[in-house]
Structure formats: structure tokens, C-alpha cells
């Protein structure tokens, strides 16, 4: 039997297992929105831990992480750095969000903020912001999945068909089981990714150099510039400290604020479960280290691989590994893509209905119809992302770059919700709008970025200044209303 058939069989077997887990897991959830979007707020520690880990570790981590280490050296350390502190704020604000969510029935991020600031406009702005950030992110996950299938079958299955197979599975289990399907498949995918990352990350340096130490010794001799932060830019020049440090800052600030991620706070069974998941999060984060080893392993032994993200499949197919092992790798890459993609599809549909349609058109929508509408939008959003992934020639990379800057602009809204009693609706909205406008402007005119600092950081500065100034000149919300949030 040809190797590619074995590899494809292993990959399809993994997909079948994901589908089975996804379908079975949703059977106990209630039929309404809280069941479909927040899993009836019943997720325990283990599942929540894997949801948090696997949702963040996307196709970017599994293929892009080694690609960064391979082509840009130590600049890839920024991925490890921002995760070290990015999750920690949840430890403090997560329990507040969870308590308020139970009390008022929130299932999305914007519901909390819109309630705090009594603003439908804020809800709609956040819904638009979420979608602008989600679609390119989801599109990349689909392209990653399609790329895995093409590699596995040596080009016999094109990207469009691969993306359709993987995201067909995602669509079925998200449609049927909602967040419970996302949660339990993420548990399976998370365990699989972690095991694979450690095995590959330690095996490849051993196979190619005799160990991790000898690999870095060889690199330190031959290519020391690849090991010294801030590393290199995509064009091979030395990255600036301003660019490196601000990339860490903007990613750390936005890390826990991604709406699909934030929504998982509402799924926790208890405050203690939530805190415990945050505490143990670094045990997931540390798996990025072997992921980076894979990229470093390729620098001296496989020079000139293009695109750099192909370094892992290139190494694996060059080593004469058993087809089953290569198949497991492909399944791991699919797991990384799907575990992020499913959460994005599910969250995007919920946000559109709860923060857009329900707020603007049908405030009286009952939970059962709402859940049905979210399911319909799961299909629509998957189709739109699929179109961008395989049909449209429009590049979404620029939009993706914007999205990180945009998400960071939610941080002042969060601070205002829980800490700034004097913050007003006009203040928060003007901060959000001016902050995002600054991000757009600086992306369009990069020469205006002083010291190479990320546009998101400048956006935050403008955002906070507008929030403070406008809040000072406008009427604050009633004290008893604000107290519920500040003292939650």
C-alpha cells in the first residue's frame, strides 16, 4: 500500500474520532442558548483547561511556530513570552465575569460591556469588531487544514477539498453539539497536540544532531544571530527591540480578550474551576518550547525551505519515518487548526445573534429560536470563511494584522467595567473607535509608527486618553448600577 494512503487513513481515522466525540458530547446540554453557547455553565477543570489551551494553539502555533523559529530565529520567543503573562488577568477578572454572567445570563463578551455601559451601540461595535477579527483568523485555519491534506496525499487532494473535509467535520459537531462539542473535541485535540509536540520536538533534534544541546551548540557556532533576541524580521534583517517588545505587549494585552476565548469564562462550573484552569495554563504554554525546537532543527540541515511554515512537513517527509507516524503528525496539525476553528465558528455565530440581531432587531427572541438561529449562522459563517479560504483571491493577511491591534482595544473597556467608576458610555465608545481608527491609520501608514512600536500600542494610548477625557466631560452612570460591576 502506498505511504500516502496509510497517512491519509490515519488522518481520516482521527477525523472520525473527533466527529464521534463532538457528536456524543452535546447530548446532555439543554436545548436553549445557555446550553448551546455556554454549555449550561458546567465545564469542569480538565475540559476547561484543554479548551483554553487548544483554542489558542492554532494552525499558527503548530506550523507557524516552527516556521518562525526556522526563518526568524529568536524572534519566535515572543510567542512564548506573551503567553507567560497573557492569561494571568483571567485569574482576577474571570471570576467577576463568571459571577455576573450567571446572575444576568450573559453568554458573550459584549453582553457584559453593553450592560455595564447601558449601550446597544457598544454591543454592535463589539460584534463588528469580533467578526472583523474572526473571519481572517478562521480563514487561515481552514487554509492550514487544506494544506495538511495536500501534503498528506502528495497533492492528490487539493487545498479546497482538504479544507472542506476537515471543516465539514467541524461544521457537523459544532452545529449539533455547540460549545460542548467544541470543549470535548478540544480536550481530545489538546492531549494529542501536547503529546505530539513533545515527541517531535525532542525526537527531531536527537535524530538530526544527537540532542537538543548539540543542536543549539551547532547553531551557536554557525548561526549565532538566530539565537539572540530580538531575532530577525520576515525579510531577514534584525528585528528592532521596539517591534519585538511591543509585539509581546499587544499580544499579552489582547490574549485573554479574544471574544471566542473570553466567552469560555461563562462555561466554567465554578469560580474555583476557572482559577485552577488559569493556574495550570502554563503547563500547556510550555509545549511551545519543543514546537520551537522543531524549527531550529531545520535551520542547518534543511536550508532554503519555502515557505518557512513548511519546515515541519519537509523534515518529516525527508526522514523516512513510518507512514503511520507521518499520519499522526498530520492529524496533530489538523487538531491545531480545528481546535481553534471550531471555537471561532461557534463564537462568531453566537456573537452575531446575541450582540447584533437580538440587540437591533428582535430583543424578544426566545432561547430555543435563538439557538436555532445560531446554528444556521454556524453554517453561514463556515461558508463565508471557506469562500475566503479557497475561492476568493482577496488577501486577508492585512486584516489579520489589524485584528490583533483591534482586539487589544477591548482592554480599556474591560478596565472601565471593573475599575473606573467614572467611565461613561460616551467615553468607552469614543476610546474604542479612536483606538481602532489609530490602528487602521498606522497600518496604512507604517512610516508613522515611531520606534517601530506596534500600532495596537499607539491605539491603546489614544483609546485610554479619549476614554479619560470624554468620561470626564460626560454624565456618569448611576452609582448603584456601577457598584454591581466594580464590586462583583
Amino acid at each position: 500500500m502506498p505511504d500516502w494512503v496509510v497517512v491519509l487513513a490515519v488522518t481520516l481515522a482521527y477525523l472520525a474520532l473527533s466527529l464521534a466525540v463532538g457528536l456524543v458530547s452535546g447530548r446532555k446540554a439543554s436545548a436553549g442558548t445557555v446550553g448551546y453557547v455556554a454549555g449550561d455553565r458546567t465545564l469542569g477543570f480538565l475540559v476547561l483547561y484543554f479548551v483554553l489551551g487548544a483554542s489558542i494553539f492554532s494552525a499558527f502555533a503548530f506550523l507557524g511556530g516552527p516556521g518562525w523559529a526556522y526563518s526568524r530565529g529568536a524572534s519566535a520567543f515572543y510567542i512564548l513570552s506573551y503567553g507567560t503573562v497573557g492569561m494571568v488577568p483571567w485569574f482576577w477578572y474571570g471570576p467577576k465575569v463568571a459571577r455576573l454572567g450567571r446572575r444576568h445570563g450573559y453568554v458573550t463578551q459584549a453582553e457584559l460591556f453593553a450592560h455595564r455601559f447601558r449601550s446597544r451601540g457598544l454591543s454592535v461595535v463589539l460584534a463588528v469588531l469580533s467578526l472583523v477579527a474572526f473571519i481572517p483568523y478562521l480563514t487561515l485555519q481552514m487554509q492550514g487544514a487544506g494544506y495538511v491534506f495536500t501534503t498528506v496525499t502528495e497533492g492528490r487532494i487539493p487545498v479546497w477539498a482538504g479544507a472542506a473535509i476537515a471543516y465539514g467535520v467541524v461544521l457537523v459537531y459544532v452545529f449539533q453539539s455547540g460549545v460542548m462539542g467544541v470543549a470535548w473535541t478540544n480536550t481530545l485535540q489538546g492531549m494529542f497536540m501536547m503529546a505530539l509536540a513533545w515527541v517531535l520536538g525532542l525526537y527531531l533534534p536527537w535524530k538530526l544532531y544527537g540532542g537538543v544541546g548539540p543542536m543549539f551548540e551547532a547553531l551557536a557556532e554557525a548561526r549565532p544571530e538566530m539565537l539572540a533576541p530580538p531575532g530577525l524580521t520576515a525579510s531577514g534583517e534584525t528585528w528592532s527591540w521596539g517591534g519585538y517588545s511591543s509585539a509581546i505587549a499587544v499580544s499579552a494585552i489582547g490574549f485573554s480578550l479574544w471574544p471566542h476565548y473570553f466567552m469560555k469564562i461563562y462555561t466554567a462550573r465554578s469560580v474555583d474551576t476557572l482559577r485552577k484552569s488559569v493556574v495550570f495554563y502554563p503547563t500547556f504554554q510550555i509545549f511551545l518550547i519543543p514546537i520551537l525546537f522543531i524549527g531550529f532543527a531545520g535551520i542547518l540541515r534543511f536550508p532554503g525551505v519555502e515557505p518557512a511554515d513548511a519546515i515541519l512537513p519537509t523534515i518529516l517527509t525527508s526522514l523516512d519515518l513510518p507512514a503511520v507516524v507521518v499520519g499522526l503528525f498530520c492529524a496533530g496539525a489538523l487538531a491545531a487548526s480545528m481546535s481553534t476553528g471550531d471555537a471561532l465558528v461557534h463564537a462568531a455565530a453566537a456573537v452575531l445573534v446575541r450582540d447584533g440581531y437580538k440587540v437591533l432587531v428582535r430583543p424578544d427572541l426566545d432561547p430555543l429560536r435563538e439557538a436555532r438561529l445560531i446554528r444556521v449562522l454556524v453554517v453561514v459563517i463556515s461558508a463565508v470563511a471557506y469562500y475566503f479560504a479557497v475561492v476568493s483571491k482577496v488577501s486577508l493577511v492585512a486584516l489579520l494584522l489589524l485584528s490583533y491591534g483591534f482586539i487589544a482595544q477591548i482592554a480599556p473597556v474591560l478596565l472601565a467595567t471593573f475599575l473606573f467608576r467614572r467611565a461613561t458610555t460616551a467615553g468607552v465608545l469614543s476610546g474604542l473607535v479612536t483606538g481602532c481608527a489609530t490602528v487602521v491609520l498606522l497600518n496604512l501608514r507604517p512610516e508613522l509608527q515611531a520606534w517601530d512600536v506596534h500600532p495596537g500600542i499607539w491605539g491603546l494610548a489614544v483609546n485610554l486618553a479619549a476614554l479619560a477625557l470624554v468620561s470626564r466631560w460626560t454624565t456618569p452612570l448611576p452609582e448603584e448600577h456601577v457598584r454591581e460591576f466594580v464590586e462583583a
Partner: protein
Amino acid sequence: MPDRKRSGQLVHRLVVAWFVLVFLAMVWPLYVPMARVRPLVLGVPFSLAWIAGLLIASFFVLLGYHLHQGRARRGGDGDA
């Protein structure tokens, strides 16, 4: 009881200060002296070992804080 509350607040502030320091230790300018290849620590460049060390230390700091909070709650101190 107020003493316990004060000590809880002090621990809270120390933990927050720790994470602010960790962030600063990974960016310019505090990270610059650590951004070097040698000595290799357990086979990895010093610059990477530094970040990994901060990640592991932060795990234990937050774990300790979580356990401390649990004890404080059991002692009737509320959410420290």
C-alpha cells in the same frame, strides 16, 4: 481578622508586582542583558531558558497564590 485581610491584600499586591516584573523582564530594556546565547542552560540558549524559567516560576507563584486564597477562604476571610 483585619490583620488577615491586610496580609491577604499584601500577598495580592506582591503577586501583581511579580507579574508586572515578569512582563518587564521579557521586553526591552530589562531583557536586553539576558538576550544572549551563552551560557546554554540545559542545552538551550540563555535567552530562551530565561523566558522558560519565568514561565515555570510564574506557574508556581500563581499556584501558591491560589492555595493561599483557598486557605484564606476556608478561614472565613472571603475572597482575599
